[in-house]
């Protein structure tokens, strides 16, 4: 089990329910692979430095996750498919 930080940018036009659903799916994938979500930090709607998918704003979430490293690639594959997520980044946290 390693610790990871996942930053997810969600489409700004979505309502709270759709955001909850998307985050629920991410949590589902993490727990399915035997990991756990330690903390969810909502940064809220932010103006992005450049446009992503024609949007200049995005809803940012930071997830602190511990997960087996072998299954990160699966999570990454799932995040690319997840429609509300316009950008994501997974960073390994070593300490």
């Amino acid at each position: 089990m390693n610790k990871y930080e996942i930053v997810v940018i969600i489409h700004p036009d979505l309502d709270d329910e759709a955001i909850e659903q998307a985050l629920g799916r991410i949590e589902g994938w993490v727990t399915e692979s035997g990991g756990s979500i330690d903390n969810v930090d909502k940064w809220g709607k932010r103006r992005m430095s450049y446009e992503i998918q024609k949007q200049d704003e995005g809803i940012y979430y930071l997830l602190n996750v511990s997960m087996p490293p072998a299954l990160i690639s699966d999570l990454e594959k799932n995040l690319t498919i997840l429609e509300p997520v316009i950008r994501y980044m997974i960073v390994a946290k070593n300490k």
Partner: protein
Amino acid sequence: MAEETHGSSRSNRSEQRPRRKYNTRYVRKPRFCQFCSDKTLAIDYKNTSLLRKFTTEEGKIKPRRQTGACAKHQRAVSREIKRARHIALLPFTGGTWEEKAR
């Protein structure tokens, strides 16, 4: 600085002039790596106000001769800037220009 602005009147020093022309934005190198002297200062992609100091106005990463960071920390800074760029916390190009345009 006063010498540089009057550079055009000194046409007899033609050898030095081309160099000076592009050297007007010279930034003095700090003597110590600030991350080595302050161990609590974490280089992190989330800390955009810190990383902004290590980019030029156009959004480029400043060279080591301007930032004064040691090799290890300069690598860390550039890595975190690239991470911040990926999630649109920092611009790839034209930081100030784009903010004005909006």
